[in-house]
Every structure is written in structure tokens, then in C-alpha cells.
């Protein structure tokens, strides 16, 4: 068949296809109910797309002009982008992710998680204990201004309305915790791509810093307000740091020891796992920021209540990660 005939035979189809792409590939909210007004029904798009693919193959095979082939190629490419578009996330999928997939994924990366936990908790506990024996060592970690600000925030004699902050409203602190903590969580993961070095560094640093504050305040007798403050949000926050560190370590391992996969393949797989873990970390840190801003800072709640709630949160988090998605049959996700 000569090109001109081919073209005149299918011209109508191509313009219809182009119009459908323009109008129906992302219909405006008010036009969503209309089905292919003046073009063809949305349900016929796959058929139209496959026909177009066949026509492109024919045009290439028969050596039709570059311009025609290019035009068909553009249409196919645009159709391809619509045809293989990712699904919009559904509520069911989101619930499933947090109830089933995320805890399973954490358990599946057990080795990385345990390594991250050790890297974080060893310096954490170490610096708390060390500062009880040699309190003066705190000056090697923090400068005098930082120390003064910590002491100010958790001074038992303070008449402030809130603990854990020098000033600021609940909403301000919530925003600040989100920006700060979640960004740290994200960077801890990303740092893992540098052969895991970034994650290891952040985990150890955070262990030393957080342990340093805790140890110092306990040593100087400000432990009461401090532990009351951190009891509620420490569960999600510290666990999230460890998980994002673990996510970073597993991507680092994929680079160092890809096993029987090519390094590129291993990185892509580890990246997908890491992104899912980071999504969970994100949710945990948002929850932690909320608790930290609106619950932990309240002064008048007595210590036993705070510690009980904190304990319940810790147990709930660990139970979730340990048991979540264990009894459910696998849907093959």
C-alpha cells in the first residue's frame, strides 16, 4: 500500500486518537462523567492504542516517510504514557501497607535493622552510662551554649508552661519537628547509598547526641522533666531513626555486596525496599512529632501517666513491627 492511501485511510483514526489524548487522558472534574463526547468512549482506548501500535509497525516496515513515522511514534508514546499510568493510591492499599506490608518489610530486612539498632543504641546507652560516671565529658560533645539551652528547657524549678522548648506554640513546634526530624530520617536513608557510610555516621552521631543530652540531664538531677517529656514520643521517634538507618544500610549492602545480581539491579531493588521503609518512617515521625508537640510538652500531667502512656506506645510499636501482617494470608502484593 502506498503511503498516501494508508494515510488517508487512517487519518481520521489518528486525529481522533490525538483528540482523545488531549481531552480525555486527564479529564477535568466536570467532564469526567462524559464518555468520549465526540471522539470515542474511554473503554475503547486500549483497542485504539493497539491499532495505532500496529499501524506504526506497518509504517516502519514499509519504509514510509520519516515524518509520518515520527507522527505515529509521538502518538504511540503519548498513548503509552496514558496506558501504563500508575494507579491512584487507594485507601485500602494504604491501610494494607501500614498494617501488613511495612512490618513484614522491616522483618524481612532483619539483619540491617539489628545492625542499625546496635549502631544507634550502643553509643546511646554508652554515653548515658559514661556521663553518670564522668559528667565532665559532656563538654566534649556539646558547647556551653547548647548545654545552657538544654538545662533551661528541662529545669525542674522552671515555671514555664511547656517542657522541652524555650518558647513557641504547639503548632510551631509541630512544624519544626516535622521539618527537622523527617528530613533527618530521609537523609539517614539517602546517606546509605554512599556504601552505608552516611547511615552509619548519622546513627552513631544521633546515638551519642541523644544519649549525651539524656545522660547529662540525668546526671545533674534534671532527669524528671526530661524523661517525662520524652516518654511519649521516644517510641516512634527512636524506632523510626533505627528503621531509616536500616533502610540506608541495606542499600549500602546492595552496593557493596550485590550477591548474584548485577550491581545496578541490586541497587534498584534495594531502592524500592528503601522507599517503602522510608514511607513508614515518615508516618512514624509525623506521629512522633504530633505527640511531641501536643502531648509530651504538657507540664501538669503527672509522671506515672506519662510513663504509662509512653510504655504503651513503645509496646504497641514493637508489637506492630513484630506481629504486623503475620496472620494474614499473602495476597501476592
Amino acid at each position: 500500500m502506498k503511503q498516501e492511501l494508508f494515510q488517508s485511510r487512517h487519518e481520521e483514526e489518528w486525529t481522533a486518537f490525538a483528540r482523545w489524548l488531549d481531552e480525555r487522558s486527564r479529564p477535568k472534574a466536570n467532564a469526567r462523567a462524559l464518555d468520549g463526547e465526540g471522539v470515542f468512549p474511554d473503554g475503547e482506548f486500549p483497542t485504539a492504542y493497539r491499532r495505532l501500535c500496529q499501524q506504526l509497525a506497518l509504517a516502519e516496515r514499509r519504509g514510509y516517510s520519516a515524518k509520518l513515522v515520527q507522527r505515529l511514534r509521538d502518538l504511540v508514546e503519548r498513548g503509552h504514557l496514558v496506558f501504563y499510568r500508575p494507579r491512584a493510591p487507594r485507601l485500602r492499599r494504604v491501610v494494607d501497607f501500614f498494617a501488613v506490608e511495612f512490618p513484614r518489610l522491616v522483618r524481612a530486612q532483619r539483619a540491617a535493622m539489628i545492625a542499625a539498632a546496635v549502631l544507634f543504641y550502643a553509643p546511646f546507652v554508652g554515653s548515658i552510662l559514661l556521663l553518670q560516671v564522668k559528667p565532665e565529658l559532656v563538654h566534649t560533645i556539646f558547647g556551653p551554649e547548647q548545654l545552657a539551652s538544654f538545662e533551661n528547657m528541662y529545669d525542674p524549678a522552671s515555671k514555664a508552661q511547656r517542657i522541652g522548648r524555650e518558647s513557641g506554640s504547639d503548632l510551631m513546634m509541630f512544624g519544626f519537628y516535622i521539618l527537622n526530624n523527617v528530613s533527618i530520617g530521609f537523609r539517614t536513608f539517602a546517606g546509605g547509598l554512599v556504601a552505608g557510610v552516611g547511615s552509619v555516621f548519622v546513627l552513631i552521631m544521633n546515638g551519642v547526641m541523644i544519649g549525651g543530652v539524656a545522660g547529662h540531664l540525668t546526671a545533674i538531677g534534671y532527669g524528671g522533666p526530661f524523661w517525662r517529656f520524652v516518654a511519649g514520643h521516644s517510641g516512634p521517634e527512636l524506632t523510626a531513626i533505627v528503621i531509616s538507618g536500616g533502610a540506608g544500610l541495606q542499600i549500602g549492602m546492595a552496593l557493596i555486596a550485590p550477591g548474584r545480581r548485577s550491581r545496578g539491579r541490586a541497587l534498584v531493588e534495594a531502592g524500592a525496599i528503601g522507599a517503602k521503609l522510608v514511607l513508614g518512617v515518615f508516618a512514624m515521625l509525623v506521629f512522633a512529632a504530633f505527640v511531641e508537640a501536643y502531648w509530651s510538652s504538657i507540664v501538669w500531667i503527672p509522671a506515672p501517666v506519662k510513663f504509662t502512656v509512653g510504655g504503651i506506645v513503645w509496646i504497641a510499636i514493637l508489637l506492630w513491627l513484630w506481629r504486623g501482617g503475620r496472620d494474614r494470608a499473602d495476597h501476592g502484593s
Partner: protein
Amino acid sequence: MLDTLTHVETPEGIALQLRTAGAMPRVCAWAMDALIRFAVLWAFSAVLAVLGKSGVGLYALLLFSLMWVYPVLFEVLRDGQTPGKKFMKLRVVNANGTPVTWIASIVRNLLRTVDMLPFGYAFGLVACLGDARSRRLGDMVAGTLVVYAETPAGASTVPQAPAVHPPVTLALGERAAIIEFGERASQLTPERQQELAALLPMLTRANGALAVQRLNGMANALLGRR
């Protein structure tokens, strides 16, 4: 190395041609996005300043969204195009040419952190310049490409001329070349057209403007016009 075309075979048996974008247009797109984000931040900071300390909190939330959420939302919901990429006619796609997925977009944008190291996207730039498909580290791990969003080509525009049948049987590629000559004629000066037509004395058996006309006639004949 010079050719930036990437061929991807789709399940329909079609080879998609993706033209990957180099570092320069991507830097421009990034700069555009940065500008837009600063403008939004600046516009809101004036409003939020009125709200005092709560305003500071909202400002932090806004900054967080612009930093981490903005690229992912635009890339997934707007066919792989942040406003900056749209301006530069770029698009993020999966390595197999399909639209970028949530997880892939999250990975490539989280790993920006590493591409920015040690300063000013140095890692990303080196990776991009060293890679045949111009991927930064985040793209490599996410399995994504940044490609040019093609602009649709127009219909065939061979000038009308009386059909002349070629004196010899032409191969497929030769026929395509003659038709392309006709399609591009409008972009060439008459002198250049004659120069090109003069390369085929065996086919046209003529000189100058007549040769051009005969070639166009052959293009018409090959297209099936009478």
C-alpha cells in the same frame, strides 16, 4: 556515545525511542523549580508572618512540603513533569518508558541528598556526564530516565508535483530518503535543494530546478499520488 536515543521495546512490539536529556536542560529545569518554590515560600511567608508563632509552624510545614513532596507529587500526577521540567519540555519516565511510579519517584527524589554531595550537585553531575543515558545517582537507583517530551510532528508536507516514476527499482531506505527530501524541501533554500538533487544524476537525468522537480515528482509517486 554521541547518540542519546534509548530504544525500549513495549509489550505491543513497538520500539519506543526515548531521547534522554543531558545535564544542561536538567539544571535549567531544576533552577526553574527552585525559583517557583522560592516564590511560593516568599508569597506565603508574608501571609504567615501575621499568624505569629503558629505561622512559623505552618511555614516549616510548607518548607517541608516544597522540599520533599513537591517533586514527587508533580512527577507522579503530572505525567513526570514538575513545572520546571514542563517548561524545559522534559519528563521523568521509568527506564522501560512507562510513566514514573510512586516508589520510583520517591527514591529518585530522596536520593537527591546524595547527588547534592559534596556541594552543588557535584556527584549528580559527574554521574550524569559519565552515564550514557545521563542518569544521576538517584535515577540509577530508582530506575528512571529524564527524557525529552516530544512535540507532535505535523502531517506529511511533500509539495505537489506531477508524479514521476523512478527509472530504477529503489530499495526501502532509498525510497524513504526521497520522500524525506520532499518533506524537508520547504526548510531548504532552492540552491541547496538543487545541490542535493545534483547528487543523483542517474535518477533525475536532469540538472538544476528540473532535477528538484523530478525528485519531488518521484516523492509524489512513492507516496501514491497521481
